């Protein structure tokens, strides 16, 4: 085995597959995951192993195969270790969440498999407690094995809405309604793409059958117009295709408008190690592709470090097939969010800093040419703790829709600062703060 260490960040399918490929190729591999357990967004393991959430069989088997191979491999796994960025000298910074301290590493190569983030587009009231992302709601079910209490409304666009609705139903807590913004019927092109990937059809059938049985209706063309507090609950105004409004009072609203690559910290650092992106953080293609992409990332590292690498033509073919499937699927959905013209000025856009659409409109009305930098530094959009993960894309699209010419780049609003996430100053001090013992 080579004594050069390579580092993989992210314990989802892409990160695990990359780690395994590099360990097989003779490299010394350390796999870091910020959360308490491996699995990533799709294979998240329950807190209590005796509680199981039903997932499609093929999906469960994919993870089981990876987990078994990992257990049998020499890969070192560090959970609760958060990648905080690559600093100027090229050192990789990891925050050990148990001790609260920063650890530095100088790996020969770095694989970033940070996964995707959900897109949630602004609607008035989306910043209220009780409004979550559909994936956030799914995480609650996956980790506790129970349905969250209270009445749930799912809204937005994308296959995840249906998946989460089915999982809620399986746990005995069918959602009040599922609103899918898209009005598109299944097109022939989409079907042709899907038929090439039968696994997806089985998974979709598995999701849809229990929903139909439970009498849940997918309201196509309907979306959330606004959410306001109603005592301890949330009063939601929904609007359908012909503009009719209806009010629903629920306990939780789960929003979702597709997935985006988690790009934070993925900009190459000048003196940093050879870095490869893998899985959803490179291109959102789903769980099957993430495994193939992880293997290919491992292969790229092996080749770069002069290790013998296997032929992974199969993985490359999987990636191409999944890309076709994803683009076919994407034509069925509408991730654009509410028409900004319908959004009142007090709609919160930046959920971290509470910056509103009115403030953004004001900036655009005042300046003749507001740059991305001004939007960020003066407007404080994309400046909050999430570093623009939830507002930058929307802000860039909105600004582009309001004027001609070169639209601002999302990357300029997100920026490429480190730390990737807010790291407590105490972490940089040599004294460990009083910390939770493991």
């Amino acid at each position: 085995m080579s004594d050069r260490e390579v580092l993989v960040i992210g314990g989802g399918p892409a990160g695990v597959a990359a780690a395994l490929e590099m360990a097989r190729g003779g490299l010394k591999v350390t796999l870091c995951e910020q959360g308490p357990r491996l699995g990533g967004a799709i294979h998240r393991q329950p807190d209590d192993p005796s509680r199981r959430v039903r997932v499609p069989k093929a999906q469960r088997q994919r993870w089981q195969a990876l987990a078994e191979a990992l257990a049998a491999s020499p890969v070192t796994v560090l959970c609760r270790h958060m990648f905080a960025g690559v600093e100027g000298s090229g050192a990789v910074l990891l925050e050990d969440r148990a001790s609260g301290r920063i650890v530095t590493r100088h790996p020969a190569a770095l694989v970033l498999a940070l996964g995707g983030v959900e897109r949630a587009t602004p609607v008035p009231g989306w910043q209220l407690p009780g409004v979550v992302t559909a994936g956030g709601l799914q995480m609650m079910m996956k980790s506790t094995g129970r349905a969250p209490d209270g009445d749930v409304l799912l809204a937005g666009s994308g296959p995840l809405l249906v998946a989460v609705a089915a999982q809620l139903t399986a746990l005995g807590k069918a959602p009040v309604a599922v609103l899918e913004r898209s009005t598109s019927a299944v097109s022939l092109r989409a079907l042709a793409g899907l038929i090439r990937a039968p696994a997806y059809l089985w998974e979709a059938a598995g999701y849809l059958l229990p929903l139909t049985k439970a009498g849940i209706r997918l309201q196509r063309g309907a979306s959330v117009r606004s959410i306001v507090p109603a005592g301890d609950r949330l009063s939601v105004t929904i609007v359908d295709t012909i503009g009719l409004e209806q009010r629903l009072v629920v306990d939780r609203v789960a929003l979702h408008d597709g997935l985006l690559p988690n790009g934070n910290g993925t900009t190459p650092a000048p003196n940093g190690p050879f870095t490869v992106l893998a899985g959803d953080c490179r291109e959102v293609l789903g769980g099957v592709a993430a495994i193939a992409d992880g293997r290919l990332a491992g292969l790229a590292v092996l080749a770069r470090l002069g290790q013998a690498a296997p032929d992974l033509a199969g993985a490359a073919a999987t990636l191409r097939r999944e890309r076709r499937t994803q683009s076919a699927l994407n034509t069925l959905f509408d991730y654009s969010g509410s028409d900004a013209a319908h959004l009142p000025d007090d709609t919160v856009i930046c959920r971290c800093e509470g910056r509103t659409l009115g403030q953004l409109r004001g900036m655009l009305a005042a300046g003749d040419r507001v740059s991305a930098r001004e939007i960020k530094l003066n407007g404080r959009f994309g400046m909050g703790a999430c570093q623009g993960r939830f507002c930058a894309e929307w802000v860039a699209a909105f600004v582009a829709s309001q004027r001609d010419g070169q639209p601002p780049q999302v990357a300029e609003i997100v920026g490429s600062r480190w730390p990737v996430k807010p790291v407590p100053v105490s972490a940089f001090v040599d004294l460990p703060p009083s910390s939770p013992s493991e």
Partner: protein
Amino acid sequence: MTSTSQAFLFDGKAIPFDSNETIAMALDRAGIRTLGAGQGNSTGRYFCGIGTCQACTVSVDGTRMEACLTPARIGLQVERIASVSL
């Protein structure tokens, strides 16, 4: 594996939790949805569940951590943060 004896403190109130549960899950089951003062009219809350939005940041024994990523432990002192800006 529910044990009723294990609890952490949230703003001084004992919150029971199940083995391996995160702080965010235990607070949600206790009916607590507002996790901090936040900024403007955005309060601290659980949102993404995967450590990306930072909206659930609380103080855990004096250190800022995402409640959705941090496992609950007996005796932890968890507090709402007055403002989550940096």
